[in-house]
């Protein structure tokens, strides 16, 4: 556990900013679950509860022009990157005002303005895309880094291997960040990966720099990522980071997650990154109850506004169905009626 003195570069505002982002993500997810129950959000909904310290700790170390690629469990990274909670909630509801115009949905959040290169729903697929973005950075002689999030389940996929190998052999500026929450859907990583308990060591097969970090400690994550960003930016090549964490909820809101042992669930409930950080801020004498109350209230308000924004936003125009397939031409077979 770091002490306040270990992070002299962080002002009280910065630290409370981290707290607020984590809290925002948590409350945003609570609201999205409510909206799901009310039928305003459909399909799959994968919430980020319990993993907030990762997105907040990691993404706040990036430059504006750095790139982010992530998986379908993407609300946390999107909000930490600064996508509007209104636009994200509207996207979850499939509204025209959503960050992907309602076309992508919860699993496919995008923002070209913020170099948020997308949430991807095919497990492992986005690692290849991240390698390609890093390839472009290297090709142009720029110094951005590409931060690519995925889960421990994705490590099983062939695309993980191909992307890790390419990034390593070509020394690409990409950070492969594994949110190791012990499960891939209902499968325990203990039963799918021999190296589940030292997952970062799998990167040795590619001669890649590798790190493990407490994913429920926002400052540890940030601290490590600052070092890694510097190395990667300096051309030292790709890195593999494994953050140990846990899903406080099921895989998706449809999943009761009763396949997880109680003691395990208990243990991790005690590791909730938000109370942990809040306690730290208190014991380090950085923040008071009043500070927290104020932030919590403003977060609640923001979430309410986001929900209202989403609900009151219009559906996409029916004609939108046919828009955006191609850049250069209309798609085929548009019914005359809709021309």
């Amino acid at each position, binding site marked *: 556990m770091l002490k306040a003195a270990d992070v002299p570069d962080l002002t009280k505002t910065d630290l409370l900013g981290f707290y607020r982002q984590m809290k925002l993500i948590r409350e945003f997810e609570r609201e999205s679950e409510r909206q799901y129950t009310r039928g305003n959000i*459909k*399909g*799959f909904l994968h919430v980020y509860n319990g993993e907030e310290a990762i997105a907040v700790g990691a993404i706040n170390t990036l430059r504006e022009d750095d790139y982010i690629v992530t998986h379908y469990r993407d609300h946390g990274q999107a909000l930490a990157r600064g996508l509007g909670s209104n636009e994200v909630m509207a996207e979850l509801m*499939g*509204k*025209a005002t*959503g960050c*992907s115009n*309602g*076309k*992508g*949905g*919860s*699993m*496919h959040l995008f923002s070209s303005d913020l170099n948020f290169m997308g949430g*991807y*729903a*095919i*497990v*492992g697929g986005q690692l290849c895309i991240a390698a390609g973005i890093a390839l472009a950075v290297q090709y142009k002689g720029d110094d951005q880094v590409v931060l690519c999030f995925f889960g421990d*389940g*994705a490590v*099983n*996929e*062939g*695309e993980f291997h191909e992307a890790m190998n390419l990034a390593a052999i070509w020394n690409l500026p990409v950070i492969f960040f594994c949110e190791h929450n012990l499960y*891939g*859907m*209902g*499968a325990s990583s203990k*039963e*799918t*990966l021999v190296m589940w308990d030292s997952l970062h060591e799998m990167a040795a097969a590619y001669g890649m720099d590798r790190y493990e970090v407490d994913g429920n400690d926002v400052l540890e994550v940030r601290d490590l990522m600052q070092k890694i960003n510097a190395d990667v930016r300096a051309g030292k090549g790709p890195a593999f980071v494994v953050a140990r964490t846990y899903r406080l909820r099921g895989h998706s809101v449809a*999943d009761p997650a009763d*396949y997880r042992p109680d003691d395990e669930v208990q243990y991790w409930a005690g590791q909730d990154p938000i109370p942990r950080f809040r306690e730290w801020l208190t014991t380090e004498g950085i923040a008071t109850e009043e500070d927290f109350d104020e932030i919590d209230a403003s977060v609640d308000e923001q979430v309410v506004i986001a929900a209202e924004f989403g609900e009151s936003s219009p*559906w*996409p125009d*029916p004609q*939108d*169905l*046919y828009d955006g*397939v191609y850049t250069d031409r209309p*798609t*085929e*077979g*548009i019914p005359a009626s809709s021309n």
Partner: protein
Amino acid sequence: MSVITYREAVSSMLREALDEDERVFLMGEDIGPYGGAFAVTQGFTEKYGKKRIKDSPLAESVIVGAGVGAAMAGLRPVVELMTINFSLLAMDQIVNHAAKIRYMSGGQFSIPLIIRTVTGAGASVGATHSQSFEGWYASVPGLTVVTPATPSDVIGLFRSCRELNDPVMFVEHILLYGTRGEAPAASDYRIPIGKADVRRTGKDITLCGYSRMANVAEQAAGILDEEGIEADVIDLRTLRPLDSETLVNSVKKTHRALMVEETTRIGGFAGELVAQIQEDAFDYLDAPIARVAGAEVPMPYSYPLEQLAIPSADAVAAAARKLVNGS
């Protein structure tokens, strides 16, 4: 006669296979403690144990490839690809390996492998999770592709697939698991592979679909019936081998045909159906064979857009009306 859900039908067939044949084992993602992404294998691990219910790593290529190998070595694996969207990651094993090994080996090795997977749109899960690739698999020599649309078809077709000694794509539909239907009375009920089902008969037009669209076609026939338009409704049930005979004979009777398909129109499997009908019933056709298919776009998440993109009974009825009334 008892009424069961499509999900129960699939589960019961898997249980029957496991109970009857020691060589059968299941392998796939989250089929164990999780109970399957669509709750088809709930409680299977408890009942059959980990040896026969293999909760696999998240790796589609080796799920199918290991199934192929196990089949070559004398077992009869039933593997699950959680959805047909992910089958693209296993396509090399399905198309380059499972479908070809028998032929390439001069007939020395058969691959008695059943690959269960889930097709279809309408679940609001977006472009990467709402596709229907069964038509592609139906174009591959060496594969058998079945697309049950009702609980009893699941039962009758699964039993027949188990008797095959070559790779089968057993394609279930994401929106059908909760649907109900009568369970066949006979405990050995079977549906021959490659035999279409005439769901309903009528003299004015032939409506043909498969998987969920067979049900949609049947609903459309109901709508049309009230208007005095009588439709033959054909559920192909098997895409490969294809029962074009039943389809062609129907069209020879009705002189008009409408193909209903969930995937996007261009290059869909309906084109094959149209081609075969006009090859064999050309002189009987009073109008061009029409197609109702998915909108030519990646599936949007947004609910109202997705609804527009999927063929509805109303859309099918409208197209049929146009065909019959020639306007």
